[in-house]
């Protein structure tokens, strides 16, 4: 996935449940540094929480990278896992679809909470999700 030129602003390894909290805190700080509004921050951090947990629960762990982008000034995260991948992305993005005993609203919900959403997945190779938010 080739996004716009980016400045690294953080990186969190996702290996256990408490790392999801660490990811939320890191993204929250990066958004504070951008002077993001409270509501935008809550929305983006919630979306990050969803995809970070997906990477952990379904992707067997992964890494979350945080970037600052310019023109316009905004934040981007990239969440990468080397899990089994998603066979049918459209289905996975549909509310109510879940392979685990969860609500099945994580992916679709995350997309609705952010300003840009890109997903790439190959079965057997893993999933990469990029999300952007304006401050």
């Amino acid at each position, binding site marked *: 996935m080739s996004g716009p030129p980016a400045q690294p602003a953080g990186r969190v390894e996702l290996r256990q*449940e*408490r790392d*999801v*909290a660490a990811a*939320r805190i890191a993204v*929250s700080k990066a958004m504070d540094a951008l002077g993001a509004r*409270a*509501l935008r921050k*809550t*929305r983006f*951090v*919630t979306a990050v*929480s*969803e995809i970070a*947990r997906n990477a952990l629960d379904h992707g067997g762990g992964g890494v979350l990278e945080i970037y600052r982008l310019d023109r316009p000034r905004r934040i981007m995260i990239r969440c990468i896992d080397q899990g089994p991948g998603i066979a049918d992305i459209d289905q996975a993005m549909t*509310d109510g679809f879940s392979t685990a005993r*969860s*609500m099945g*609203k*994580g992916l*679709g*919900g995350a997309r*609705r*909470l952010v300003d840009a959403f890109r997903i790439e997945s190959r079965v057997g190779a893993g999933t990469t999700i990029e999300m952007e938010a304006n401050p």
Partner: protein
Amino acid sequence: MTVAPTTEVSRLLREEFDSVLDAWFATQKREGVRRPDLFSDRESRRQLSDLLRAFSDALSRIDITEAVDIDADNWSELRMALSEITLVRTERGVAPWEMTAFMLALKQPVFEMLSKNLADRTDRLLAEAADFGRVVDALAMHINEYFIAERDEIIERQRAEMMELSTPVVQLWERVLTIPLIGTLDSMRAQEVMENLLNSIVEHSAEVVIVDITGVRVVDTQVAQHLLRTAAAVRLMGAEAIISGISPKIAQTMVELGVDVGEVTTRPSIRAALAEAFRRVGFQISRIEDTRV
């Protein structure tokens, strides 16, 4: 038991024990890691002597020209002596870096003695100095690991304590309980919350339970699911759950996520939730008539 080859280092530690001890002590003094404010000279010398004795014993048994694994069984006595001294010194306030420097200070005096005694045997000098240096480095690293392990243990203990403290169920009134949630509600904590709450419902014959999430920063689908499951379990126990403290930000985010709270009662503040709870259990709050004259 294998017998290690006689090296100049092992000979020094055996036959010139006192001069090595003195030189080590002097180096520590020069580097300012002796801490005479915490230990008398006598005490410090005894610690060094114990450690050096264990070191000397280890070198007479172990061939350090081979790869050194300080965690192996044959190093256990030296390891124990080192751990004991580390414990005693840190309990009195010696810093981790001082403890490492304390160990590393053995290198220089031994190097000096080696270079004097092996002046005409450069190859042996280099090999022995390298081997000895490796062992001392490994011991210094062992000290560091000791500190890290100790700190990890403290962190883990505090985590456990915090977990226990962080889900207090409070009785607000007859048959009314509240549980204020703060921070993150991961699966482990959610389980804890659920258990505490359900037990307290039985204990207090509660009819209304206020789950306050004012202190929860992010409500994602997992947190929402935990809350709704808790509410469902509370209902099965014959009580009602009220979720309070949903901020406007979180309310909007939950709508976007597509979370439906269904029939669970929610209130924006714990105050509004308390009023609702009183109404349900048949109490009413009224202002006292002013009886002052």
